[in-house]
Structures are given as structure tokens and as C-alpha cells.
């Protein structure tokens, strides 16, 4: 009797557990299919800089990765993996379509705007390559910097967001350049054909952009004059001369109006153009934008002459080819560059002035 009830005691719970197991198992699998989705969609801050970088781990089309395999992830059932990618894909699509709406509303403003955005994207793609090149040299350091840079942009965007339509646009295609362009639109001087009227002696900032038609990618011609400064411009003084800085453009008083001038070396500005990227070399780090190098100081960002060995991926439109002793260089704003192939990309490395 005791024996029987003991057996009963064991058998009945066992059967109940087994039945429960059979019932629960399909549910568990079902949940497993969907559950992975959260993993697939998250993160993505590994490469900073915003915009649309063209370089990534999939771009090389290799059959192996630099990373070691994680056995844990690989033991997942095939269904789980399939489900996970499906979920994250659909989530991604939602993001994309909402982004698209933003994009449409923001870029339908005018054609110039769209062109600008395209240009930005091109720049960013090339900048992506530089960051990669730097990463080769500097490892995690440079990546961290670009992450910080990205963070700054994001923060900036957040601050700008919602202030007005103009800045909304700036948020999206990131940037100051667009701000400038809006400004240009207001004053009707978008065409980038005027030549900077300044002097021609190299080294002197008056000739800093000698022969250069525009501040590249900006649309506001150097030498163009405006009747009033844009809102939120910052006064700066360089070697006793007054300038105004707004969204990456520099203005100098000229009679009753203000002339767009090249970035004056030695000028210290509170923040760098949002379109700038971080470049490193010779133990220093710079923000680079449109042929101008900024170095962080305690007071702000100082416009400096870069040391040799800095790699950048795109030169401003006005860069000229100069052949010295049979070697072709590029020169822009008193900075000399030599082109190289880095992988399949043509990049530019700063060099000492070969004529001096």
C-alpha cells in the first residue's frame, strides 16, 4: 500500500510534467522566433560621424571577419536566427520610412538644398574612409574620437531640433553648410562663381584662398558681401582684426556690409562646423572641414596649419594641382597635399610645402 502510493506520488507528477513540457515547448519555440529581434536591431554607434558612411564590415565582401566566433550565438536554432533577422528588418523599415518622410519634407525645400545634401553624403563617405585609415594607425583611439564627434553632432542636432524649419533641415543633412546656404538664399548670392578678391601672397591669409572660387561646398562665394550678419554670429578677433563667425562661415566688416572671407588662421571659434570630421597624425588631433584644420584648445577651436602626415579623403573644390620637381601636389589655403591610393580610394596626405 505504501509502495503503491509512493509510486503514485512519483508517476503522476512525472506525467503531468511531461504533458506540460509537450504543451509549453511549441510556445517556447514560437517565442524564440520572435524574441531574437531585439538583439538584431540595436546599437550601431561603432562608426560615428553620422551621414551615410560607405565603409563597413560588409563592404569588403570577405568570407571571414576579423572577429573571433562566438560559439554561444552560433548554437541558436536556425528558426531563431531567421526570425530575428526578419524582425529587425521590419523594424528597420519602419525607421527608414519615417526617415524618408523627414527627408522629403526637409529636402523638398529647394533644389540647391538637395544638391548640398548629396555633397555632404559624398564627403561623409570619403571621410568614412579616412577614419578607417586613421583607425589603422591609431586603433581604438580614433574610433573613440569619431564616436565623440558623433555624439556632439547628435547633441547639437537635438538642441537645434524644432527651433525652426531652417534648423530642422540642418539637423537632417547635418549641417552648417545648409545653414549657410539658407543664408545665401536669403541674400540671393548662391552662385559659386565669384573669385575671392584678396591678395595673392601665399601664407598671408588675404591670399589664403587665392584663386579659389568659393568656400568649397558652401555656395557662398568668398568675397561676397552681405548687408547684415546672420543671426547667432560670434564676434572673434584675430591679430587685432574683427571677424564674425557663423555656421562655418567667416565675415569681415567691409564698409557698411560684411564680406565672406577665408577662415583666418589663428582664429579661435567656440565650435567646429558640424560637417567636420576628426583626423589625427603626428600625435595631434584635428577637426577637418573643407580644407580647414581646427585644433581643440582650452578656449575653443583654433584654426591651424596642419603638420605633414595627416590624411584626408576629400579636398575642397578649389584645390589646385601644382607640380614641383616632377611631383604633383595639391594646394589649398596654403596647405600642401600629396595624393595616394589607400585601398581603392584616392586620399590626400598633408606634406611640407615643397616650394619652401
Amino acid at each position, binding site marked *: 500500500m505504501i509502495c503503491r502510493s509512493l509510486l503514485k506520488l512519483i508517476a503522476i507528477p512525472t506525467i503531468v510534467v511531461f504533458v506540460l513540457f509537450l504543451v509549453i515547448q511549441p510556445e517556447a519555440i514560437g517565442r524564440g522566433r520572435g524574441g531574437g529581434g531585439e538583439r538584431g536591431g540595436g546599437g550601431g554607434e561603432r562608426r560615428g560621424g553620422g551621414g551615410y558612411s560607405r565603409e563597413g564590415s*560588409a563592404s569588403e565582401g570577405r*568570407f571571414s571577419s576579423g572577429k573571433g566566433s562566438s560559439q554561444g550565438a552560433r548554437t541558436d536554432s536556425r528558426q531563431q536566427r531567421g526570425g530575428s533577422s526578419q524582425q529587425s528588418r521590419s523594424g528597420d523599415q519602419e525607421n527608414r520610412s519615417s526617415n524618408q518622410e523627414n527627408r522629403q519634407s526637409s529636402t523638398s525645400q529647394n533644389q540647391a538644398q538637395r544638391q548640398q545634401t548629396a555633397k555632404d553624403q559624398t564627403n561623409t563617405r570619403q571621410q568614412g574612409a579616412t577614419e578607417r585609415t586613421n583607425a589603422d594607425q591609431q586603433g581604438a583611439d580614433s574610433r573613440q574620437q569619431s564616436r565623440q564627434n558623433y555624439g556632439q553632432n547628435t547633441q547639437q542636432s537635438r538642441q537645434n531640433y524644432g527651433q525652426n524649419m531652417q534648423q530642422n533641415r540642418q539637423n537632417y543633412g547635418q549641417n552648417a553648410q545648409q545653414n549657410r546656404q539658407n543664408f545665401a538664399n536669403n541674400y540671393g548670392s548662391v552662385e559659386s562663381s565669384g573669385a575671392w578678391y584678396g591678395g595673392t601672397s601665399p601664407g598671408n591669409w588675404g591670399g589664403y584662398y587665392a584663386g579659389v572660387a568659393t568656400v568649397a561646398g558652401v555656395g557662398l562665394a568668398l568675397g561676397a558681401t552681405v548687408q547684415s550678419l546672420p543671426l547667432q554670429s560670434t564676434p572673434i578677433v584675430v591679430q587685432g582684426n574683427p571677424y564674425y563667425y557663423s555656421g562655418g562661415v567667416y565675415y569681415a566688416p567691409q564698409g557698411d556690409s560684411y564680406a565672406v572671407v577665408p577662415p583666418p588662421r589663428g582664429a579661435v571659434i567656440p565650435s567646429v562646423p558640424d560637417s567636420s570630421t576628426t583626423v589625427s597624425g603626428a600625435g595631434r588631433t584635428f577637426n577637418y572641414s573643407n580644407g580647414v584644420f581646427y585644433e581643440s584648445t582650452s578656449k575653443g577651436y583654433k584654426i591651424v596649419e596642419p603638420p605633414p602626415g595627416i590624411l584626408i579623403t576629400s579636398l575642397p573644390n578649389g584645390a589646385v594641382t601644382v607640380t614641383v620637381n616632377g611631383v604633383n601636389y595639391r594646394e589649398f589655403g596654403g596647405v600642401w597635399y600629396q595624393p595616394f591610393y589607400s585601398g581603392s580610394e584616392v586620399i590626400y596626405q598633408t606634406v611640407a610645402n615643397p616650394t619652401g
Partner: protein
Amino acid sequence: MKKRRWYLASLVVTLTFMTVPVLSAENQSSTQSPSELQAMSILKNMSEYLAHAERFSVTIRDGYDVVQGSGQKIEFGELRKVTVSRPDRLRIEVERSDGQKDLVIFDGKDMTIYTANHNIYATTSRQGTLDQAIKYALDDLKIRMPLALMLLSTLPSELDNLGVAADYVEKTTITDVPCDHLAVRTAGGVDFQVWVAQGSEPLPRRIVITYKDETGQPQFWADLSSWNLAPDVSDALFAFIPPDGAERIQFLAEARSAAATATPKKGGNK
């Protein structure tokens, strides 16, 4: 007593059923299933066939995700026309989705890359086989050459080195020729799928690579079409004649290593 026997029997039966799934799972993981064997065989056939082809040309239309800082995936792509003539000739014409046009040529002596948009090229002397040249281009010069593995005459052993495990997914007929669809895992955290043409020419028609350990699990995909196993391989195809005004520059990797060798104490290129 009858009741007792019933309880005992039902307990035994239940325990047996509970054990079966565990045992069968162990069996599955220790031996290859027929579909896995079939898949490995198809993969091997394909790799042997490609590796032993004396020459071939193929058009590759590829695309790849770049996971942006925001987490958004953006796809870029390109069109590549590849001509291989073993043992030592290669020509790749590239048109990227942004319009940049590149040409990569190896003629057994020199490796050249030319970018039409800049009218710029770089040439480096590289005597040797195509396999050696491809590895140099990839590992040292970092030239983009997606699916470069497929161009190596050592493809079968390269796949072995990756630790591939393949499974058969399905036969598909919606490709331009009927294909076997294989799911392949490597030991290195990269999965790929390949669609191999059925019949006497087991060539890859489509490849999808998933970098599952990377953030956002980006994919690379490629459609391979216009396979030709007897393409024109005249010398002219592999000769690079710089267009008018083309500027010759150096590979950064070579310039830096040359500078490091020439002035080791300065060590200026860090």
C-alpha cells in the same frame, strides 16, 4: 497489484518518451545529415570547378549594408566585370553605385589600379601568380576586391580553412538557371548562402554573406551572371595604357613602408 503495475508501466513509458528527444538531438549533432552531406558535396564541386577553370569572365552585381552610426542600414553597391586568365592575368572593371569607375589589372608583372573619375592610377611591380597578386592586393594594398576568395586557384582549401559547414536549403527555379541553395556557416562568425547552378557547370549564381557578429548584422550580396568559361583573353585586355593626362601616384602602403625603410630613425609616418 494491477494498479501498481500500471503506475510502473506509465512511469517507464513517460521517462522513455522524455529521453527520446535528448538522444535524437545528440545523434543529429554528431553526424552529418544527408542534406548536409549533399550540400558539402555541391560546395566542393563548385569550388573545384572554379579553381580548375583556366579562364573565365563573370559579371557581378553586388550590394552591401553599411550600418550607420544611427543604426540605420544603408546599402551601397557596384557592378564588377571580372576576367581571370590563369595563371597570372586579371582584369576587374568596377562601377560603383556613386558613379566612381575603377579598373584593376594584373598582367603577371604589374598590378595597376586606375580611377577614371580622377584620371589617376598607381602601378606596383609584382611578379608572380594571380593568387599571390590577389593576396598582396588584399592584404597589403587593401584594394577592395569582394569575393576575391572565389578567384583563387586554392579555393577548395581556402574553404576548408574557413571551417565551413554546409546544409542544403532547397532547389530553386527562379534563378536564371535552376540552382541548389546552400546555407553555409564558417567557424569565424560569418554565415553565407550560395546558389550553385545545377548541371555540368556548377558555378555560383548568387552569394549572400552575413556578418552576424557585427553590429546590425550587415550583409553582402552578389548576383553573378554572364559566366563565360572561354572569354577573350588577349594581351590587350590585361595591358594598362594610361589615358591622356593620367596622373600616376603611389600606393600609400608602399610609400609608407618605403619611407620607413629609407629613414628608419625618423619614423615620421606613424
